[in-house]
């Protein structure tokens, strides 16, 4: 039934948006992480969305009318890392500078609001499809 496909599409949208929200939370939490497991400073992460056919998960992004969404990957921001002059720090280099993460709080906040709005829109679409399916049962 077509409405159940709409459920699946809205569900894929909600899953993708919450993953985006996770990336934002990770970036904010690590805004001051000087050292990560790799030894370097934390770099801001960003998820990349990709349209997929909801039927068979095939790679055709523009199979008309069948487009769900999926997280295609997580990329690290290429923005330059901040440097802070703090000679007393353990992590300071020879010149006394500490390399800090390249997280931009303003950017993260905007991204968070955008993710929230998109999530709500998906939820609304899901609820509309649900009420239509319930209405069909009472014909």
């Amino acid at each position: 039934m077509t409405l159940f496909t709409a459920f699946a599409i809205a569900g894929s949208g909600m899953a993708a948006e919450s993953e985006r929200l996770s990336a934002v939370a990770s970036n904010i939490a690590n805004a001051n992480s000087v050292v990560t497991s790799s030894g370097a400073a934390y770099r801001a992460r960003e998820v990349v969305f990709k349209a997929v056919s909801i039927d068979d998960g095939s790679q055709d992004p523009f199979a008309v009318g069948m487009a769900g969404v999926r997280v295609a990957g997580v990329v690290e921001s290429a923005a330059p890392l901040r440097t802070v002059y703090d000679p007393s720090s353990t992590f300071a280099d020879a010149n006394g500078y500490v390399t800090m993460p390249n997280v931009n709080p303003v950017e993260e906040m905007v991204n968070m609001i955008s993710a929230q709005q998109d999530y709500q829109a998906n939820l609304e679409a899901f609820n509309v499809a649900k009420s239509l399916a319930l209405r069909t049962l009472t014909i």
Partner: protein
Amino acid sequence: MTGPVDTGLAFYRQVLELRAYRQQVLTGDIANASTPGFKAVDLDFREALSAATADASTLGTSQQSGLAWLVEDPRHLRPGGDDLPRGATAAVKYQVGTPVTLDGNSVDLNQEKVAAAENAVQYEAAAGFASQVIKMLAVAINGSGSQQSSGA
């Protein structure tokens, strides 16, 4: 189903299926509101419905589904399949005139929400009409409607 009993019902079946399909298309747009390069699409309902009803012989008998039922006689009942009416996918078109963001996405979230709400109302209306057709048939079969009206 064919025959005099379902007069009018097959048409509403097409309408409901197409409305549900449009809801699916719009939901896909909303899900991809942040996908880079995604271009918003919409179902041209007028074109889809006229394509579906143009060939009257297809009314109520959508394309056979892939499932094969064991029937001994061609007049036996078969699964109708829940495939879309003919020409529905061809009526899905890219939306034009919506603003395109820097990453090449052309989904206007507000417009999509309005279209989805409007489509939902249209679906409810079609479902209501279908209910009325069934009630009408019930009145014709039972005759209860005329008794009620004479009693009132």
